[in-house]
């Protein structure tokens, strides 16, 4: 992907390399040997039915969950090395959650500066410059002094993205970033993500937005029951799937008349 000639500096993108990843909760094996590569600057969308292990996979990448077996490399970090500097690694991996998880006791600006000052030891003024730049980037420059509960869901999610970007990550993980949003605010969040992709950020995105996946993703990975069933360029996996399970899943997601009880 080419870096756009935007106002922001080119992203130093990191790649991700996952090999034979296994994760169990008790006797329930949720990830059954996942291998997945994301090249620096690539956007990979992770799709699949509820409970297939998408969130778990994403959370393993920045070690919010401890894998049971396999290796994960993020840029120069080997995440699964027991001696890895976890906090250092996480500084270069941005995570965006389905429910935003903004810090409600801090203003929008403070949400974006607290980790810069406390972790990266940036000065207050530098941190707040970086934060304002990233709030501009997500279109919320004038909301810096508000508190999270004064924002709509879509605005909160964009703040969450700005908060992650303020740490200058080399990889961004998104776990269903638009699933908790009102339909009319989904577009704003997707627009921000699209721009980020154009700027060359490495992105691993769990999503049910097939339009976004088709348009932005370099590759789409379909997961079911803890295994990768099918992967490839978006136009192949989404428009011309070869595996029966993928076809069945897409038929259900893309058919607007289908009522999915599980959602």
């Amino acid at each position, binding site marked *: 992907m080419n870096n756009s000639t935007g106002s922001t500096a080119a992203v130093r993108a990191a790649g991700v390399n996952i090999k034979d990843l296994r994760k169990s909760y008790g006797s329930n094996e949720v990830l059954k040997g996942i291998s997945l590569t994301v090249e620096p600057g690539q956007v990979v969308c992770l799709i699949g039915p509820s409970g297939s292990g998408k969130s778990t996979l994403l959370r393993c990448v*920045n070690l*919010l969950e401890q894998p049971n077996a396999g290796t994960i490399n993020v840029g120069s970090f080997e995440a699964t090395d027991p001696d890895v500097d976890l*906090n*250092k690694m*996480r*500084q270069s*991996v*941005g*995570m965006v*959650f389905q*429910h935003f*998880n*903004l*810090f*409600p*006791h801090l203003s929008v600006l403070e949400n974006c500066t*607290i*980790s810069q000052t*406390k*972790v*990266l030891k940036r000065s207050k003024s530098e941190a707040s410059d970086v934060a304002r730049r990233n709030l501009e980037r997500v279109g919320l420059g004038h909301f810096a002094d508000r508190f999270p*509960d004064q924002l709509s869901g879509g605005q909160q999610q964009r703040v*969450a993205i700005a*908060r*992650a970007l303020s*740490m200058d990550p080399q990889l961004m993980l998104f776990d269903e970033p638009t699933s908790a949003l009102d339909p009319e605010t989904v577009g704003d969040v997707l627009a921000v993500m699209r721009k980020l992709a154009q700027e060359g950020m490495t992105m691993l995105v769990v999503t049910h937005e097939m339009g976004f996946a088709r348009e932005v993703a370099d590759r789409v990975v379909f997961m079911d029951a803890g295994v990768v069933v099918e992967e490839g360029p978006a136009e192949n996996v989404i428009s011309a799937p070869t595996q029966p399970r993928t076809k069945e899943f897409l038929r259900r997601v893309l058919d607007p008349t289908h009522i999915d009880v599980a959602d």
Partner: protein
Amino acid sequence: MAMTARQRAKVSLYVQAGIFVVAVAAVIIAVDWKTVGNSVFNFAKIGPMFPDIFLVGLKNTLIYTALGFIVGLSGGLLLALMKLSSFPLYRWLATGYIEFFRGVPALLVFIAFGYGVPLAFGVQWDVFVIVMISLGMVAAAYIAETLRAGLQAVPKGQMEAARSLGMPHWRAMVSIVIPQAFKIVLPPLTNEVILLTKDSSLIYVLGLTASQFELTKFGRDGISSLGAGLTPLLVAGAFYLVITIPLSLLARKFESRSARTKR
């Protein structure tokens, strides 16, 4: 006979009012007002209690309560963190401590630290130190449970978001989780202070010099020296209310505020 809901409500109101009137009348008839006037509401003879009950008693009650609260809050926070620790020994120690000090009467703790420990170890403690230790150790047990509940009431996503930004666990606790938990525990913590204020009266089991007297001690001394019956206790009780009612109002204010900002 059938009644409408409105009629039923009216009858119920009359019945309740009737019961109240009868009860008050019974008390007025049954009580020996002459004796009560001499030994409970005998305000003519309590002059000598002032101004010392105010300048010394109230002051000391406030000091003892504050000392107990400071120790209780620090100890309680430590115990709460121990109870949530991933290290089992800490959890057991904290649980043991909390169950013990919540299970034995505070009076016994005062006696133990006022007489037992100084005797056993041949030390001479100032009354303020004894109060600080006994009241503080009892308070710590109760406050620990309050704080633990508060810490656990902060959504898990807050810790995850903080860790994802590269914050070490302790930093996430200090900057993200504890400030939010603090808002949650403010009302119950205020109630702890009310309980402590009253528990500070247990100090009467220690030998006190006049300058160490607190409200209850003033009340008890007044009974034997003033010949006004129980009236001095009534005065002491009124002073407790001067402390506890504002606290109670404060707790309610905190409660309504946190209810308003709840999301």
